[in-house]
């Protein structure tokens, strides 16, 4: 497989010269984004199915076997709907906002390593890039809320912005622990740092367990998912920042939310659950390709996301802020010091 790719690359370089690199990169981008979009579509179905099962229902099952064509039907419906632009809105920003929401969720995938060496951009500041990209997502939300010129959208976007900014800090500190343990900002190096003879006991979720939990919860809050879906809050502010959106513009927000979920899940898998590494270093596990393990871990974290949504009621807003500022940030700060001290002792095994 690798040799085939190498010969292909050589042939391409001979044939196209300087034009080869951008072309080949484009092919890689499509190879990442296209499955991602399909993943997003089927995550919506998985969500409806999982939540349905947890509520002792069976979920969608009319469109195709097991409801398998449901996401396609939903997509087609949204595509043919009219995009209504409110008269009082800022037309330019109103149209730009959904794009701004989706773009960072896709761009962050550039540095995600799918297997050893299987990464679009192997940059050394990968973690920093990820943090920057996930933070950019809030602009889409804020601009959507402001440009709609509607009070519900505005309140929703303010809530969401405050929430994302608060949880970003806790998330950042949790990642500081990871980069201390791995001594690298490069995502591939972080995964390699988790490699050991003991398999899953070498992964960072063991020494950094509190940070793993904080990262997972902060991740749920970052993506505005239940129980932190204050930005949408159907019961009080209708749908939050995207009340005024319809048709494909709404679909873009929808895609952005689920793409962000998948991103957070894959990052959790990379930073705490050993990325592409198999859980045990014995025959049946090591035979499977690395990408399988990454996707399996990602699916597990995504299932947790859906499980949370089916279980927990929505937080009250002041409690949400209390959790972010008065629990997570002190906790992560303490754990940064603990990890730092721990690493100086001979008892640090990772």
């Amino acid at each position, binding site marked *: 497989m690798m040799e085939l790719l190498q010969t292909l690359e050589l042939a391409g370089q001979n044939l196209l010269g300087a034009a080869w690199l951008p072309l080949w990169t484009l092919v890689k981008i499509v190879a990442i984004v296209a499955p991602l979009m399909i993943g997003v579509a089927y995550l919506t179905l998985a969500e409806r199915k*999982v939540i349905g*099962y*947890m*509520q*002792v*229902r*069976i979920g969608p*099952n009319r469109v195709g076997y097991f409801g398998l064509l449901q996401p396609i039907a939903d997509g087609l419906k949204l595509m043919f709907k009219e995009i209504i632009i409110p008269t009082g809105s800022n037309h330019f920003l109103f149209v730009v906002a959904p794009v701004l929401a989706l773009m960072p969720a896709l761009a962050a995938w550039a540095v995600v390593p799918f297997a050893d060496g299987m990464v679009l951009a192997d940059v050394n500041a990968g973690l920093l890039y990820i943090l920057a990209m996930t933070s950019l997502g809030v602009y889409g939300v804020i601009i959507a809320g402001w440009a709609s010129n509607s009070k519900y959208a505005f309140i929703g976007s303010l809530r969401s912005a405050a929430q994302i900014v608060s949880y970003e800090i806790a998330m950042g500190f949790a990642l500081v622990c990871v980069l201390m343990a791995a001594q690298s900002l490069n995502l591939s190096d972080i995964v390699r740092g988790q490699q050991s003879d003991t398999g899953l006991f070498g992964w960072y979720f063991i020494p950094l367990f509190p940070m793993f*939990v904080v990262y997972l919860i902060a991740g749920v809050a970052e993506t505005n998912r239940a129980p932190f879906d204050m930005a949408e809050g159907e019961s009080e502010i209708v749908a939050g920042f995207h009340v005024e959106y319809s048709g494909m513009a709404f679909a873009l927000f929808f895609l952005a939310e689920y793409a962000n979920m998948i991103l957070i899940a894959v990052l959790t898998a990379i930073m705490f659950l050993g990325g592409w590494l198999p859980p045990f270093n014995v025959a049946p596990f090591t035979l499977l390709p690395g990408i399988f393990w990454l996707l399996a871990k990602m699916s597990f974290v995504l299932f947790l996301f859906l*499980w*949370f949504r*089916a*279980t*927990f009621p929505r937080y009250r807003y002041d409690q949400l802020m209390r959790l972010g500022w008065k629990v997570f940030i002190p906790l992560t700060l303490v754990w940064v010091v603990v990890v730092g001290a721990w690493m100086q002792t001979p008892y640090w095994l990772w």
Partner: protein
Amino acid sequence: MEKITNFFKSFLLLELLKGMALTGRHFFARKITVQFPEEKTPQGFRFRGLHALRRYENGQERCIGCKLCEAVCPALAIHIETEERDDGTRRTTRYDIDLVKCIFCGLCEESCPVDAIVETRVFEYHGEKRGDLYYTKPMLLAMGDKHEEQIAKDRAADAKYR
């Protein structure tokens, strides 16, 4: 002391894990969904569906035009006009039920002294244009003729409770 244990308990997320265990168990529970067009839930003999006007066995209309149903209808969905027939009886010339107004409370059925207006078990119907759900006397009588067997059975089952 209690405060301290509560503090640590909340950090261990025990309550949340309990909640997740509950939903996790339900994930594997037998699903209770009734898949409607193929499966149906049971109906009682007092089911209140679409209305019908009944006849006696000799084919004579039961309705005597007393307008009790019209008077009792809380949604003002019933409109009745009557005439005197050659044999001296009072009969309806119009008996309209606007199903868009109707709230299916069953008061018309309850008030009827001769069991003429009844509600059947039919609940799968629709109207395609405005006016389709405005039921006139011939339509109601046709409903009654069509479902008389079921209607009579349901009245008989209900009889001992009336």
